[in-house]
């Protein structure tokens, strides 16, 4: 069971004067419009609780003014919650002193901004180095790390350019590289692609998915675009007027929308192009490692009424599958010599629309793998049909 990276507990964020009065009015159940008129105080986030698991891509979606940017800024204390707790790895960061907060920001959490937030007086390289520079890392070391990050986001050769010489998409790549250089465990992305034109946005989404797949970081991603949210998110939270409306896997929004607001939000979404395999896939019922004994695997297959299972090595890399029929005749040794290596697999970040050709209607489980060819789950025709029809 993956553990929680972030726990947002009853966080309320109020801007401006009269905070106490605004909080009181919230408790009395007054609407935030009413509070704004009476006290001149803006309620950014209203009593939101969330749990974000380690390694997941968590998307917070909502219209402008829904409090999503205010909420994400609580996660590195750019906004200090007026009330409530925010736990990262079990520690309440609201209680951090200046030094602890600096350490958190330097090593654990980094952020990507909607309008890039690049330092216009510094070159691409110097921008990317910034996070390491403030840590006091030696010149050579930080240069190496920065160059590696620049290469990863595909900007090799642009190191000595200034931000104003780059296009929007390239600027955001710099922003992303800068956020990745200090190897954070948690990446906060505040509408990173909203300022980009649609084609570039699609490219960046794909790129982000491949980077995420590769690095396995926890990412909190903000967007106002439902399509983007469902394309990217392992789980999605929908905010409205500072309150949480619904949270769950993209499929769950379609299966049981919490209310009419959610229904209207997802109305025009083509699910097959938005739902990703990893949000629909299941864990395999039976799974073997190449060193498992044949007898053991046979027993497990029989118990679960399966006639085949996928086999990985101890690093979870997918090797192939073994069939019950083949193993029945053997009584000793491990399964490694019986692995069938011709098989279809699907990458976990592909969209359901892309899987049709690989899934026939016979309903056998197809392996789902990540970039490193590790087995992440299985999916069959029925899973896809039920996800799309739900």
């Amino acid at each position, binding site marked *: 069971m993956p553990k929680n990276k972030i726990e947002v507990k009853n966080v309320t964020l109020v801007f401006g004067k009269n905070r106490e009065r605004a909080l009181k009015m919230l408790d009395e159940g007054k609407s935030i419009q009413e509070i704004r008129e009476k006290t001149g105080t803006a309620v950014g986030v209203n009593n939101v609780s969330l749990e974000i698991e380690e390694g997941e891509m968590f998307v917070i979606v909502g219209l402008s003014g829904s409090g999503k940017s205010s909420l994400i800024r609580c996660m590195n204390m*750019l906004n200090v919650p007026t009330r409530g707790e925010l736990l990262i790895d079990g520690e309440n960061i609201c209680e951090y002193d200046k030094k602890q907060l600096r350490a958190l*920001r330097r090593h654990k959490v980094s952020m990507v901004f909607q309008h890039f*937030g690049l*330092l*216009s*007086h510094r070159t691409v390289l110097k921008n990317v180095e910034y*996070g390491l520079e*403030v*840590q006091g890392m030696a010149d050579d070391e930080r240069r190496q790390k920065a160059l590696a990050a620049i290469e990863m986001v595909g900007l090799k050769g642009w190191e000595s350019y200034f931000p104003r010489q780059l296009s929007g998409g390239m600027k955001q790549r710099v922003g992303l590289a800068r956020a990745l250089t*200090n190897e954070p465990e948690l990446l906060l992305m505040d509408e990173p692609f909203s300022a980009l034109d649609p084609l570039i946005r699609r490219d960046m989404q794909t790129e982000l998915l491949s980077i995420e797949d590769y690095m396995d970081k926890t990412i909190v991603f903000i967007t106002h675009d439902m399509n983007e949210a469902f394309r990217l998110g392992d789980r999605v939270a929908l905010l409205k007027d500072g309150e949480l409306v619904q949270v769950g896997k993209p499929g769950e929004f379609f299966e049981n929308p919490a209310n009419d607001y959610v229904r209207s939000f997802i109305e025009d979404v083509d699910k097959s192009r938005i739902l990703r395999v990893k949000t629909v896939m299941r864990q395999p019922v039976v799974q073997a490692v190449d060193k498992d004994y044949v007898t053991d695997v046979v027993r497990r297959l029989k118990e679960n009424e399966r006639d085949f299972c996928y086999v990985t090595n101890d690093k979870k890399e997918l090797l192939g599958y073994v069939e019950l029929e083949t193993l029945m005749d053997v009584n000793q040794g491990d399964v490694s010599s019986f692995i069938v290596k011709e098989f279809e697999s699907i990458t976990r970040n592909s969209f359901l629309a892309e899987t049709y050709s690989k899934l026939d209607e016979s309903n056998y489980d197809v392996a789902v793998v990540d970039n490193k060819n590790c087995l992440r789950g299985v999916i069959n025709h029925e899973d896809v049909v039920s996800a799309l029809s739900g």
Partner: protein
Amino acid sequence: MIGFPESLRFEISEPIDQCVNWLLINLEGLFDAISRTILSIFNAVEWVLNILPWWVVIIALFYAGWKLYNLKTGIVLSVMLFCIGLFGLWDLMIYTLVIVIISVMVSLVLGLPVGILMAKSNLAKQIILPILDAMQTMPSFVYLIPAVMFFGFGKVPAVFATTTYAIPPLIRLTYLGIANVNREVIEAGKSFGSTSAQMLFKIEFPQALSAIMTGINQTTMMAMAMVVISSMIGAEGIGEQVLISIRRLEVGQGFQAGLAIVFLAIVLDRVLQGAAVRLKETE
């Protein structure tokens, strides 16, 4: 119309006089020290400018104009400076220039920290902004009086009066430059765990640099204007030439000296602006 009642009187001129007198008596040592410091800086800067042969200055200016703008600007600027020499005002111009340079230096030393303080502290901003407004509205002659009282006649009071008159735009633009740094850029700096000092020197100050350069330019131009008026309290230089011409009603002399001041102002303005633009491009 009925006159304002004679009995309703409360003048602030007397307390101010008393205050100044008290300062004069009790802080004599301080004023002496300031005076001596400014004089020694003055002599150093003047010495440097005087050992430069006139043609080196003109060639350097030509080169600067050429590199910062184009060949034509280089020629025009150096011809202007050459004309000042032709008018027989070269030595006086150097003198004027020294007062301007020192006033700008003092303005930088005092103005940058004040501007930064205003950007950081709301209280400081609320106190200093109206003072700046008042300073910029106050007739420039008024600054001559305390200058004379504290420092007597000569170059030191001239530097004092010039600095007081010229410093507001630098403070204001430093404050605006730092206060107006893009919000996301500030957030980005914070989100990577910068300390306050790192924020200031690695982000805010460099981002505000072009505004600050504009401030330096405006301060220099105001110093040029004030240095002429300072001739009334014994500052030598081209301004003194204008003053003499007024007294003797010599139209030609006066116009010539006035033109020299205009030329010097244009030269300073162009060079500083060019440098500011260049700085903005490379940074």
